[in-house]
């Protein structure tokens, strides 16, 4: 144990460095043909924000329709398309690429002391695949949409709907490859591109979390791809592989689909957990409590995450013994998440805490993720799953994890690394307000849905019995607050691009390698590759560095 005093640097004299990755080349082509991981990250950031607001508007429509028990704003058909497209866009075009493809892309090479990702062209390719898939999805939406839900359940998707299942499937298929390439790139980079002295246990936890998520992307996504190919063949040619009248088994599709789509949940949440580790440590000026436990819990989640998929099928008539095994494994996968929460909480112990916006979002994450995780246990216990599954309880549960967890983490990370990405600070007061508004709006939107689910209100209903109305009204009211909470950052972050205070290299006095270079960084990140001689989150090392600087300047 030792003491660390950290003072924030004086920024009145700071200037944005003339030479950085943003100014190196100009023109649209220099962006569209770039191999620079930071520029690709910015491209991703713009495109996923766009899709987030498309998906968000669809969510708004859903909430408006559910304001009244009748399906009066739109026909049930339209409602089905709206929630299907909301799910598809949010899952495949926002949540899966959100933290990894933007923040991860930008920060990971810098954190491990590399000049770029191992395969820059593949990185760019994965952005183009993402955009192609996104355009296809938008085209589908414009030309009539799809109404299968994001789960493409057979035989509904193969034999009973006549909407654009194939083009949507194609879009998801392509987006899947984009995700595979991102994951593959991360794994190769983390294995092969670490700076001298950057051993595995000196890696920041953000990198560990991305490593675990990448394993899931690389091994899980191809199974989704084959499931979609089979679904498309079944729909076009009628091969019978999922058709019970021809001897096929519709449950096989469920197995293949969830073999990806459950790990996909961890693809979405693990990078968010990585962000939280960085933020909590930085703003309590303290090493993450139990580094090894947090690192290994990420890997444990990835490994166990592959063996729990059938808990989506407890009521679908899989064998009772399969239910026992998958229920038990689901309980086991909940433990590493609990470990993380407590380790983060104890990171605060004897720290020196400040409450900047990223920290507020991180606190929000911890509270909401605890609720999201605990309600996951309700669904993992096979008995209560019978009553609660396929109701609003499950909707609330995964929104607590995905929106309350992942989106909070994403916003936390964006605020945290915004100075590094742009060289400018976001405005502190209004962003703290946005964090609080988001938190309140979120709880108001999704907490009533737990009660609705317990009451038995089924998900994906355009109309519902009138006694559920009051809770739905709360939920819709909350959604409008939440909408404001999400619009605010777009406005003030855009504003800050021009008018924000100049950040300097290390506004938070964080220890990551990315904070030791100029903001915005050079095209190849480091003037020369650093040699790492300290653990992650070593605030004493940071102190010594500063003393050295002062000494050399003096």
């Amino acid at each position, binding site marked *: 144990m030792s003491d660390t005093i950290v003072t924030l640097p004086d920024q009145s004299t700071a200037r944005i460095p003339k030479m950085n990755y943003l100014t190196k080349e100009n023109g649209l082509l220099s962006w569209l043909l770039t191999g620079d991981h930071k520029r690709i990250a910015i491209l991703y950031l713009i495109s996923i924000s766009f899709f987030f607001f498309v998906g968000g508007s669809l969510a708004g429509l859903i909430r408006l329709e559910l304001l009244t028990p009748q399906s009066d704003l739109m026909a049930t058909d339209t409602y089905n398309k709206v929630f299907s497209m909301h799910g598809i866009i949010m899952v495949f075009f926002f949540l899966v690429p959100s933290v990894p493809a933007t923040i991860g892309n930008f920060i990971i090479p810098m954190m491990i002391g590399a000049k770029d990702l191992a395969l820059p062209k593949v990185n760019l390719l994965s952005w183009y695949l993402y955009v192609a898939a996104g355009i296809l999805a938008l085209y589908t939406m414009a030309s009539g949409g799809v109404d299968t839900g994001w789960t493409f359940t057979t035989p509904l998707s193969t034999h009973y709907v006549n909407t654009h299942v194939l083009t949507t499937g194609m879009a998801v298929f392509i987006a899947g490859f984009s995700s595979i390439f991102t994951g593959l790139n991360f794994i190769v980079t983390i294995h092969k591109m670490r700076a001298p002295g950057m051993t595995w246990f000196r890696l920041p936890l953000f990198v560990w979390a991305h490593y675990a998520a990448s394993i899931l992307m690389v091994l899980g996504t191809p199974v989704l791809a084959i499931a979609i190919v089979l679904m498309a063949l079944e729909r076009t040619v009628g091969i019978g592989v999922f058709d*019970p009248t021809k001897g096929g088994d519709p449950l096989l599709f469920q197995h293949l689909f969830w073999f990806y789509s459950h790990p996909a949940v961890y693809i979405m949440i693990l990078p968010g957990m990585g962000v939280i580790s960085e933020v909590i440590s930085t703003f309590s000026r303290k090493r993450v409590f139990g580094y090894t436990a947090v690192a290994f819990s990420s890997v444990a989640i990835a490994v166990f995450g592959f063996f729990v998929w059938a808990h989506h099928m407890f009521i679908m008539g899989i064998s009772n013994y399969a239910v026992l095994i998958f229920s038990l494994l689901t309980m086991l996968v909940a433990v590493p998440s609990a470990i993380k929460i407590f380790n983060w909480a*104890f990171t605060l112990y004897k720290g020196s805490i400040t409450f900047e916006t990223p920290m507020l979002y991180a606190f929000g994450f911890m509270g909401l993720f605890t609720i999201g995780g605990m309600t996951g246990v309700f669904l993992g216990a096979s008995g209560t799953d019978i009553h609660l599954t396929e109701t609003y309880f499950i909707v609330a549960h995964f929104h607590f994890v995905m929106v309350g967890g992942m989106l909070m983490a994403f916003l936390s990370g964006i605020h945290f690394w915004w100075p590094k990405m742009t060289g400018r600070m976001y405005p502190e007061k209004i962003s703290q307000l946005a964090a609080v508004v988001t938190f309140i709006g979120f709880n108001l939107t999704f907490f009533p849905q737990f009660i609705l689910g317990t009451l038995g209100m089924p998900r994906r209903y355009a109309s519902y019995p009138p006694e559920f109305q009051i809770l739905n*009204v709360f939920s819709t009211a909350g959604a409008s607050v939440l909408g404001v909470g999400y619009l605010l950052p777009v406005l003030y972050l855009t504003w800050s691009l021009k008018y924000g205070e100049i950040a300097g290299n290390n506004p938070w006095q964080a220890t990551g390698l990315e904070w030791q270079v100029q903001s915005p960084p050079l095209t190849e990140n480091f003037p020369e590759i650093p040699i790492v001689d300290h653990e992650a989150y070593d605030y004493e090392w940071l102190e010594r560095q500063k003393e050295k600087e002062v000494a050399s300047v003096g």
Partner: protein
Amino acid sequence: MSHISPIIWQFLVKWMTNFALFPPEASKIAPQMDALYFFMVLVSLVGLTIVILLITSFSILYSKKRHPVAVQIEGSTLLEATWTIIPLGLFLVMFVWGALLYFRIYTPPANAMNIYVVGKQWMWKAEHPGGQHEINALHVPTGRPIQLTIISQDVFHSFSIPAFRVKREAIPGRYTSVWFEATTPGTYHLFCTQYCGTDHSHMIGDVVVLTPEDYKKWLDGSTSGSSLAQNGERLFASLSCAACHNTRPDARGPSLANVYGSRLTLSSGQQITADDAYLREAILNPSQHITQGYAPIMPTYQGQISEEGVIDLVEYIKNLDSDYRVQQTTASTTLLPEGEGNTTKAPVAPGANQRAPQGMVKQ
């Protein structure tokens, strides 16, 4: 209250009178489910409180103002072991408790009354053994275990009765089952909870729980004239099943009397219990379900009988406790009107009536 706009007032009244926070408990399993549910809520609340307390108290105690110097701590194996083992233990308790409940809900007692439920886009059809048909409704008596045998005719549906805390997926091509014992008379919601296309949200109905006396009245009042087994018998005859499934020494198929619930040895050597699912499969995919000693000559009825027809047949075979009626039908096949399916003329068994009438179809 004149200063409140009448429209808002109307809404307030409506909401406050139609406001639910917890579903009614109307089955035997419901209180057991709720016990586990509230245990979990309790654990969650305690866990959440601990997390919130930790965050707020540390935030206050160690804010930069009060505690300008951070103390670097590696971790603590003891603490970490604590918050690994305690959650693990709690989760394991929930796992065991949940699994017990799961097995209870999906293992029907032997004396349960069976009602068939067929889901199709977008309605539920319930068929009572006495031949009563219902659409988007289910009438059940209190105080008697009811087993639902569920199947879907097209896509996945899910049969959910929140007040009973039970739910089961209706899957195309296979039977699933769930059981409950209703306790409180009343009308409860019936939902389809698996997304099934355009009118998914209209695939709802009422579960009406009646006292046994009212239920008997209802049964008498809504009978369609013939029971499922009787329908099945007619179908059995019109499909000429008895041409092979009879007791003659040269019979080409096994006798079906008392076959339900018995252990069969298949031609593949596999031992199997003849349950509803087996009977259904044996009608639709016979060649995989050949009883040992018989040739695989039975034609498939896939695509020729509706799900309801299969249910009628299954119900008939379940209730067949002697061959007497089969012989009757064998003798009189040609006299019966043609029902659904393809009718081929079966040879009339000579002397089929010579046996003593030993039994009847159970009603």
